């Protein structure tokens, strides 16, 4: 490693190379498994790649799913971000209340602790009864999935404020309710942000369940259709798009967090 330029280049490339190893191995295994006919039900990576192009821009198979990726992606994104925003709208104020007011904690905490372990999938039938088949139900399920991580991290954030900071604020002339805006909220921002990040991740995570409710469009709907039609390549394409979209969405959140939380020594995601 005599050449400093080469070693600088390597240090830049290293994370990319390392990150690519596991996916490439998996891809190789997939290729071997399908060409060696260990399974007949899964298409080869090449077929999926080809189908992905058709799904995205069309021109290969020209069937009902050709060139519909953007439509489905936008439909799912609408539900993911809409459900997430609705979850944040409820979870943030409730979390602040539970974290700051003992009566609110006694009133709501036991109830929410019992509700929390119930998986979103279990809510599916009830959600369809309450909100009907379709988009409203999907929206509600995504919202439910994103709700708890935002709530719990908000509660934790406002409860974990260093008590010394309240004393510091008080001796500087900031007392009572002013402390909520000047101390509690800013101190809780990193935790709240973690909650929002986890919540958005979970919103992507539950989108398929949310779209089992009979919506015509959306990545979850595509996957469910693929299952019904035994079109495995469609299922895999839907999975890949959800993975990539969820990942990119998370990177954006992390970038915002790094800017917003420059002051925090613990936040360099």
């Amino acid at each position: 490693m005599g050449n400093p330029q080469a070693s600088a280049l390597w240090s830049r490339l290293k994370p990319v190379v390392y990150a690519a190893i596991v996916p490439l191995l998996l891809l190789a295994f997939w290729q071997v498994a399908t060409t060696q006919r260990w399974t007949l039900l899964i298409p080869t990576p090449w077929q999926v790649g080809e189908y992905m192009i058709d799904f995205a821009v069309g021109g290969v198979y020209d069937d009902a799913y050709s060139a519909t990726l953007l439509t489905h992606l936008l439909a799912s994104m609408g539900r993911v971000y809409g459900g997430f925003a609705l979850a944040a709208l409820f979870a943030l104020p409730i979390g602040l209340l539970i974290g700051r007011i003992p009566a609110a904690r006694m009133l709501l905490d036991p109830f929410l602790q019992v509700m929390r372990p119930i998986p979103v999938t279990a809510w599916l039938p009830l959600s369809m009864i309450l909100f009907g088949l379709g988009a409203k139900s999907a929206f509600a399920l995504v919202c439910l999935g994103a709700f708890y991580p935002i709530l719990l991290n908000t509660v934790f954030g406002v409860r974990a404020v260093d008590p010394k900071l309240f004393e510091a604020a008080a001796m500087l002339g900031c007392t009572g309710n002013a402390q909520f805006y000047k101390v509690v909220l800013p101190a809780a921002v990193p935790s709240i942000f973690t909650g929002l990040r986890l919540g958005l991740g979970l919103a992507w995570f539950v989108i398929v369940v949310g779209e089992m409710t009979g919506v015509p469009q959306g990545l979850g709907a595509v996957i469910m259709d693929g299952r019904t039609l035994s079109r495995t390549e469609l299922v895999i394409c839907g999975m890949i798009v959800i993975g990539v979209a969820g990942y990119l969405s998370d990177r954006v959140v992390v970038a915002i967090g790094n800017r917003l939380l420059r002051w925090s020594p613990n936040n360099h995601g």
Partner: protein
Amino acid sequence: MAEATIPIVEIKDVSKIFQLQDQTINALSGANLAIRKGEFICLIGASGCGKSTLLRIMAGFETPSSGEALMWGKPIDGPGPSRGMVFQDYALFPWLSVRDNIAFGPAARGLSSGEVKATVDKFIDLVGLQKFATAYPHQLSGGMKQRVAIARVLANDAELVLMDEPFGALDAMTRERLQDELLEIWERTRLTVVFVTHSVEEAIFLANRVVVMTPGPGRIESDNALDLARPRDVASPEFNAIRRVLGAKLHSHHGKKAA
């Protein structure tokens, strides 16, 4: 001068009892102390002697179980900007820059943004942190953090500065520098300082009165005026003579227990 005779703070027969589950702790018992404007007082003693409790009563963070804590003759009723506290672990607001930490008090008191800016500039200069004005606390060394903590208290026009082992977490070199700087600020501004420490040397170097406290229950053992000339030389025979006397007082309760 009237100001010199009326104490800024008066502690009258103050006791403090903490009730912890089934345990009763006599943190402070029958303390009397009068602090006059411009004094530099060190409270010194082993852990459990009540020195921090006494300081926190002056700050208004604790209320006496019995007795009275007065400032300018009126009972101390909760914390307030007239009494600034410098904590051992700094307690800076991590989400605010150095500037904004210092601006916190003036802004909370409702000064105009121009006044806040002028005040902050003045005190950033005073503690020599011009270059770090936009840095966040986690980017600063311990010594710099404590300078910010001192500046934010001074920027808030505190008449009384309460310091709870402020240099205890710093390395020896930084501690000596900050001791010098603190004395310089004290001499320039004629502040009143109450400084808690467990180091006899630090107390003799800084104070013009050293209040020795002993534990079990926490109480004031003696109140010692020092008239050593400044700047003080820690290696001088006078300094060491005082150190011996105060050291003996500090450990007097051990003898009593053994007897």
